[in-house]
């Protein structure tokens, strides 16, 4: 069913988005910013336990990485993670080269790749059977790009990204499960709480 699994480059375990997101969030001890892209990526970020430094994107498909780049440029001392789906990244592939050019060393990009638009009915993406997102990222200039072989490898790659001298992209193959939670869709609250969490604002 999932044609992504047929791609020759994917000698990697099929994991689960919520499990991986929970593993990431469990590692965060220094008020790291996390940007959740549209749909399931931010639903699972929400379900993994809300943090003041989380930003949940409710539209603007494909802009998870650009938003994260903006945060990383504005606060170079803070580690920034971004969670995107493969379908979202396909919509804004050019941002990989922009990020490679600016090369913020505090940015870790995570692509949740199930080869489908899960939320719209699990239709395969145009790239599912043929394209390798990590190879595309590397060819876009992001030298620190790798597939995570399994959960342990994912955690290792996350740790490794913290010490990297440039941005990192981690590709993870995931199953076709929907997100676990549902983000409260209040854009102003999301934005204001995020700004409080980043120390930009003081509470009213």
């Amino acid at each position: 069913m999932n044609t992504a699994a047929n791609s020759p480059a994917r000698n990697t375990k099929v994991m689960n988005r919520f499990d991986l997101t929970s593993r990431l969030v469990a590692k965060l001890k220094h008020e790291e910013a996390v940007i959740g892209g549209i749909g399931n990526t931010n639903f699972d970020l929400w379900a993994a336990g809300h943090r003041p430094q989380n930003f949940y994107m409710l539209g603007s498909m494909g802009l998870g990485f650009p938003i994260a780049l903006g945060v990383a440029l504005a606060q170079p001392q803070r580690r920034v993670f971004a969670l995107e789906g493969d379908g979202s990244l396909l919509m804004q592939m050019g941002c990989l080269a922009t990020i490679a050019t600016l090369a913020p060393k505090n940015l870790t990009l995570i692509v949740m790749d199930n080869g489908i638009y899960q939320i719209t009915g699990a239709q395969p993406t145009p790239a599912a059977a043929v394209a390798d997102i990590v190879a595309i990222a590397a060819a876009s200039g992001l030298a620190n790009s790798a597939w995570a072989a399994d959960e342990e490898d994912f955690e290792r790659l996350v740790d490794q990204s913290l010490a990297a001298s440039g941005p990192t992209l981690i590709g993870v193959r995931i199953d076709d499960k929907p997100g676990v939670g549902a983000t409260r869709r209040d854009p102003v609250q999301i934005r204001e709480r995020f700004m409080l969490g980043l120390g930009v604002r003081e509470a009213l």
Partner: protein
Amino acid sequence: MAAAEAQTVSPSSQGTGWQEVVLQTLKRNDIRLVPYVPDRILTTLIKGLHADPFFTTFPTAREEEAVGIVSGAWMAGMRGAVLMQTSGFATLANVLASLAVPYQIPLIMFVSERGTLGEFNYGQALVCRTMRPVLDSLAMEHHTCTRLDEFEFIADRSIKQAITTQAPVALILSPLLTGGKVFDK
């Protein structure tokens, strides 16, 4: 073309050209991050931004990418503005309606206006007609800048209003201000 170029002033000179007004107004309002998708009209301004270490300025592959970047940066405490041309603005309806407006982000856009007052490409003329209806449909603040003597007032006040009211603004740079792009081949 010669007439248009004659009225531009390089940002490094003492000039009072519109490009210098943009540059100084951005500076005065502490707007440091300026991603852009280029336009012929914006060439001198973009050169001036790159030449000034105050600014972090770079091209993006799409206009909405630039909007995402300045939105993230603003939430993290760094002010930005996006430069584009009319046809680039036409790609933005989704991000304006789903990010900038509902999240109350003071997105500042400078749009060099193609498609009017001597346009030679019919497609540009048509896409230009979509710009103000999109802005109006979202009740977004926008001004068409036509005169150099008013430009600093409009730009400075609009930037301040965008930031204090947390609402996006589009400053449309008319060929009356910039000279526009004319058919020269």
